[in-house]
């Protein structure tokens, strides 16, 4: 429990402080997700306090914690609706801000579309242009549904573009630069990268084999498997690290106790 509470404080304060220190520009944040998470976190801590206040934990209290987590997951699942409910209220600032946000996202979307467009055949181009027109019109119409439709359309156009992109070599390089898919057979071109490549090779090869890359079209539907495998790898590394901590600290003690046990055993054996 000390670990959990300690890491909680560390995560909340130190990680956010790091975010603030690292980011080069002053970042304006959207208040809603942070208020949601931190508010629920407050509730969780308050419940935890009431549970451990008498220093006894009954079974229904443990069950209450688990159920509270289920509630949290449900809140996250209906996040869109709730956020719409919160933002849809007729206060003037929030909707404007969300629309700004949408405009920004659409801008980014159009940028990517343009980038892809220059490498596309004429037929696909006409499709994407019509989609862009559509997004523009819906954007003018306003409302929260624009990003959803835009996103759906982007996905629908993105896939064929990508398949087409893979045919030509320079386009392939663009995709590789954007996503950095690991290729076990390719040596890096720059000399100073080779040492790092050799050092990282076994690890990356293992990861490449065990974790299906959901960015590829073949594994696109197996993103859950990717998630589970990554989690397993992270857990493994974590336990290994704790093991090494123990090993280093307990090494001398373990050596001495082992020797002592052996001598005791010998003593008992030969004293009879």
């Amino acid at each position: 429990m000390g670990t959990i509470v300690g890491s909680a404080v560390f995560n909340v304060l130190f990680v956010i402080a790091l975010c603030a220190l690292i980011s080069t520009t002053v970042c304006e944040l959207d208040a809603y997700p942070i208020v949601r998470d931190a508010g629920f976190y407050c509730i969780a801590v308050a419940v935890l306090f009431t549970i451990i206040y008498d220093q006894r934990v009954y079974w229904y209290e443990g069950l209450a914690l688990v159920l509270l987590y289920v509630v949290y997951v449900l809140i996250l699942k209906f996040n869109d609706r709730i956020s719409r409910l919160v933002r849809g209220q007729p206060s003037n600032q929030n909707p404007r801000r969300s629309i700004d946000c949408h405009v920004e996202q659409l801008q980014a979307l159009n940028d990517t579309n343009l980038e892809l467009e220059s490498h596309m055949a004429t037929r696909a181009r006409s499709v994407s242009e019509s989609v862009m027109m559509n997004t523009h019109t819906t954007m003018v119409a306003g409302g929260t549904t624009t990003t959803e439709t835009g996103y759906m359309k982007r996905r629908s156009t993105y896939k064929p573009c990508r398949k087409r992109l893979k045919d030509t070599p320079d386009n392939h390089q663009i995709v590789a630069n954007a996503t950095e898919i690991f290729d076990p057979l390719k040596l890096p071109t720059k000399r100073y990268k080779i040492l790092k490549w050799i050092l990282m090779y076994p690890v990356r090869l293992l990861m490449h084999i065990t974790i299906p890359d959901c960015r590829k079209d073949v594994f696109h539907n197996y993103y859950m498997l990717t998630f589970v495998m990554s989690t397993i790898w992270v857990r493994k590394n974590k336990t290994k690290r704790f093991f090494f901590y123990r090993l280093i600290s307990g090494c001398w003690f373990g050596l001495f106790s082992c020797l002592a046990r052996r001598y005791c055993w010998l003593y008992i054996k030969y004293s009879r």
Partner: protein
Amino acid sequence: MGLTILAVGSSIEEIFSAIVMTRRGHPEMAIAGSIGSNVFDILMGLGIPWLFRNLMRFTYQPPALETFSLTNKAGAPLLPSADETFANFEDNLPFYVEIHSRGLVYSTIVLFVALIIFLLTFFINRCRLTKLYGVFLIFIWLSVITIMCLFEMNIFGVVHQETCRRKI
């Protein structure tokens, strides 16, 4: 106390993921991830072990009933008979997991206060992350860790039992 400090080690992944996300321009994702993982830690990481420890009681069988019928030479039972054991067992019906450190209760309060401070200052700062705010948060973190450690070291009165200490 050691575990409170060691918690830094257990959230190194959090730091790296936060750094990567912030570099790529999603600081909200980093913050929501760190807070959400904490919610998971508290609710599931504490809830499930406690729940299962309590439920294990229902499947618990008193060990090896034959040993209870052993008698010594006088004929009196050496150990309480099976019935008596069960009676005692029934007496302790509301089973619970005991937490041996009072300091943890205080640590939870400190955590709550730190969270409230974070939220308030976040709104005072108008939902922005500035460098000054980062330094301020690190300062708060250091002070919170110090307070927790002082609690565990029994500075503010005895909050939990002494750990094994070599007798002089």
